[in-house]
């Protein structure tokens, strides 16, 4: 064996122990230190406790602690006499190494002393480096990952998608596919249960997605309730299968705290073409997701080129609609409402029309969906409300000398608009319309979905004397609770039930039941979509109050509508004696 001085290598090996990849793994470090200096005992001592030790019993640890003076000492252990040497660390901690029986040589002691200073320096440097590294890693993580779920965020998703598009693992066999996942009615979870529950729900969904994909797939959260899965597939069948499994897993009741929440998701699928950019691919999947929503939610839809065309058309319509609002092309048309009891026109429903400079007069079906999606529906509501009130306020019913009653549709978003009640109040003042002649028509679904936001508005409208008309009654959630809770003055029986009168006995039973119930509650009934005299006669015999439909007039412009107030009414059914409702309640 060479006579190379052992102690010259001591410092090098000890310092190497302190520069292992995980300087925090102190158990490894002190093992290595003990082995390097050929010591039986090594320990790290805090000011009042042994933080970590090797080679000593619990009782002997106390002995070490009591002798922690920083000076070499001789301790009596069960295994023999221990010669100790100390090295200061940071935060008043000490590293102690002890050798049984044999003391350190002078040269070893000199090196152990140097070791103390070096370890302290090394530890501080390592801690500084580690802190810097951790800060950078954390900053990078924050910049690239979603804080809630820990999933890659939009930035990292786009980056990874670009990489995956550039270098597919096996382009001949596998194609890249994107699944754009949007949770249906997620807002309801936040509204009904609070944002904390909403966050827990999102976490559960993120876990489901992670579990369902393979290790090479990518799951990310783009925003809010939008998730993304990027996967490889041999064909569309594989991607559709994955989408179906995701839908199935999300659609199960998820336990969030003490609650079981069951909501669905809509998924758009897009398979990459060679020329697709990451942005295009995500957009395509997004379009497909919207298609899934249109088709009824809780399902998936695949991207095809026609969706792009539809989206383009929709974008064009939106742009034109914005111009139309600026140019006053959105106007109110009026459809007459007749009183069966009085046998004449007593009011109108105001309906939005778009006087398109090229396509002519467009019905709501041509633009209301786009208006809803573009956030323009509130503005359209406001235009129609203003125009209709101002127009109708100038008309006079020859029988009463007063303006006719007026029904105006209000969208869910319009009803939730905090300025609605103020605007209605200003219009009533401006036009001198009697508030009891103004009915705001809303759907049952609107009441159910937006009740939280709309509740304040409804109460304020009630205070003004304005009444609600429930449109399309019987087609929504039909929660009778709402009829009692809100100032409902009119129920409008949906045309789908009126259509069947005279042909389908069930429809007749339904209509009769609704009318009876309404009369019991003191609510007036308007039957929509009346097109035949037979329907009008049956409705009359069932006690319906008002009729509306093509039999008595299509929606017309203001000038033609006003004339209807002065013209005799044709197609009236034979009248029965009016029987006042015994329990009619005043509202």
């Amino acid at each position, binding site marked *: *064996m060479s006579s190379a001085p*052992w102690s010259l290598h001591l410092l090098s090996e000890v310092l*190497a122990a302190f520069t292992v990849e995980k300087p925090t793994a102190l158990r490894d470090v002190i093992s290595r230190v003990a*082995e*390097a200096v050929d010591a039986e005992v090594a320990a790290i001592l805090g000011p009042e406790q042994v933080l970590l030790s*090797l080679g000593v019993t619990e009782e002997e640890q106390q002995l070490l602690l009591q002798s922690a003076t920083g000076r070499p000492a001789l301790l009596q252990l069960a295994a023999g006499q221990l010669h100790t040497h100390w090295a200061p660390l940071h935060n008043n901690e000490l590293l102690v190494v002890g050798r049984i029986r044999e003391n350190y040589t002078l040269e070893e002691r000199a090196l152990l002393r140097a070791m103390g200073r070096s370890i302290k320096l090394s530890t501080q440097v390592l801690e500084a480096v580690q802190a810097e590294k951790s800060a950078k890693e954390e900053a990078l993580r924050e910049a690239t990952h979603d804080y809630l779920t820990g999933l890659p965020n939009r930035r990292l998703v786009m980056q990874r998608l670009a990489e995956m598009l550039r270098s597919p693992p096996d382009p001949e066999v596998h194609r890249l596919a994107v699944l754009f996942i949007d949770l249906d009615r997620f807002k309801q979870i936040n509204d009904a249960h609070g944002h904390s529950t909403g966050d827990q729900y999102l976490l559960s969904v993120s876990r489901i997605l992670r579990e369902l994909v393979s290790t090479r797939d990518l799951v990310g959260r783009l925003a809010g309730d939008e998730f993304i899965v990027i996967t490889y597939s041999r064909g569309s069948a594989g991607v559709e299968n994955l989408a179906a499994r995701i839908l199935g897993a999300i659609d199960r009741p998820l336990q969030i705290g003490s609650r079981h929440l069951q909501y669905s998701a809509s998924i758009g699928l897009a398979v990459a073409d060679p020329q697709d950019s990451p942005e295009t691919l995500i957009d395509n999947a997004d379009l497909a997701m919207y298609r899934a929503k249109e088709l009824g939610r809780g399902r998936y839809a695949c991207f095809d080129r026609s969706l792009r065309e539809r989206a383009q058309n929709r974008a064009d319509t939106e742009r034109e609609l914005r111009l139309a609002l600026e140019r006053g092309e959105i106007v109110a048309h009026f459809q007459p409402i007749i009183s069966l009891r009085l046998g004449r026109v007593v009011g109108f429903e105001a309906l939005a029309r778009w006087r398109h400079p090229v396509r002519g007069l467009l019905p709501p079906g041509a633009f209301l969906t786009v208006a809803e999606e573009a956030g323009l529906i509130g503005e359209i509501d406001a235009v129609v409300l203003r125009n209709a009130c101002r127009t109708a306020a100038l008309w006079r019913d020859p029988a009463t000398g007063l303006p006719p009653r007026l029904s105006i549709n209000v969208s869910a978003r319009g009803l939730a608009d905090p300025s609605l009640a103020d605007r209605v109040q200003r219009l009533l003042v401006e036009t001198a319309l009697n508030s009891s002649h103004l009915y705001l028509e809303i759907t049952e679904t609107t009441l159910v979905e937006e009740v939280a936001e709309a509740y304040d508005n409804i109460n304020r409208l009630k205070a003004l004397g304005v009444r609600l008309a429930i449109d399309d009654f019987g087609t929504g959630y039909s929660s009778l609770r709402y009829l009692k809770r809100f100032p409902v003055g009119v129920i409008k029986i949906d045309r789908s039930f009126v259509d069947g009168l005279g042909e389908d006995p069930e429809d007749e039973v339904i209509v009769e039941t609704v009318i009876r119930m309404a009369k019991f509650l003191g609510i007036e009934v308007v039957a929509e979509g009346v097109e035949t005299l037979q329907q009008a006669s049956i409705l009359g015999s069932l006690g319906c109050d008002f009729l509306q439909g093509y039999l008595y007039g299509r929606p017309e412009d203001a000038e033609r509508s006003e004339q209807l107030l002065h013209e005799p009414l044709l197609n009236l059914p034979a009248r029965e004696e009016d029987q006042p409702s015994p329990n009619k309640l005043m509202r």
Partner: protein
Amino acid sequence: MTDATKLERWVLVGTSTARDGATAVQEALAGILGKGEPKLTILFASPAYDLGELAPLVKGAIGSSELIGCSTAGELIRHQALSGGLLIWALGGDGFAVTTAHGLGNTEAGLRDAAHEAAGCLRQLQRKEHTILFLLADGLCGDQMEVVRGAYDVAGAGVPLIGGCAADDMALKGTQQIHGTEVLSNAVVAAAITSNAPMAIGIAHGWLPLTEPMLVTESKGTNLFSLDDRPALDVYLDAHDAPPEARTDSKAFFEFAHTRPIGVGRRNRIEIRYVYGADFVKRSLVIFAEVPEGGMAYLMKGSSGSVLEATSEVCSLAEQALDGHPARAFMLLECVARKSLLSNAGVLDQSLTLPNVGPEIPVGGFYTYGEIARTEGSGGLHNQTIVALALA
């Protein structure tokens, strides 16, 4: 007052090379069971046997006493190295007490936690005056230094460690450990043995430095990347003047390195590390256990003479540490690489004559993939070494 050292203590060794497991167990136990129920039975068996069959057979025969064991690369008794056989080493008598335990390793923590758990058997032991911890570890599961570290965490400076790394007849595919009737892999089994008489350990290897010490400039785990800032593989091949085939072919390198270990410099000794692979791209060596970065290392050479000498002296070294008590038995744990060197030199039988050991003293052990022996310091993992446990 009774002299505690006079309480009965006995050690017996039995062997068999019968192909049939049941027959082999019966033959090996034949000379042991007549002495009474052992306190501890240790089974060393060739992987040619179904250890899952052997363990219940042995356990059934020894009753409630403790059983541990492992697969080997051969068993050894005085005058004979067995191949494809089994050896049973048993101790008993009121002078001994034993507890056993095992721990299972995992890919993240390696065997350190497993050894820590196995060494926990020390806590249940009613200690007499002298105590050792005997360990058998999976020899193909990561850095074997971790076994010593994990066991030392529990045993501390007061309890010597001894043991071996289980082997598989050089198939290098997987080893087995036995605890009771359980056959394990990726595990450490331990027996805490306490006695009213001394037990001592001897260590010898017979390898000599080929080079001056070199600084280990880069190593990590079982990979040795550089020595004196040169690629470790190149340093190794050049210093040993390796033949061309060993410079490019993994199998040829393995055969070449089998008898050319690395030495890790310690204060008053050199600990041997077995080189069992090379990365020809990274120009690094794969070592059986860690060669610590920052420390000093030697390339080692050996001759049949020096290795033979170590075998003959190891029992003497162990007996000398018995504080004047005569040894009543030895266990030998010898590296399979030493067996190869001695066998190739035609002196394997000669190495087992053990001239310093009386003919009446039982001797038995096995050929290992690594030897554990800690008597001073906190390290104690050896390769290509012979370790002897002497019991007074």
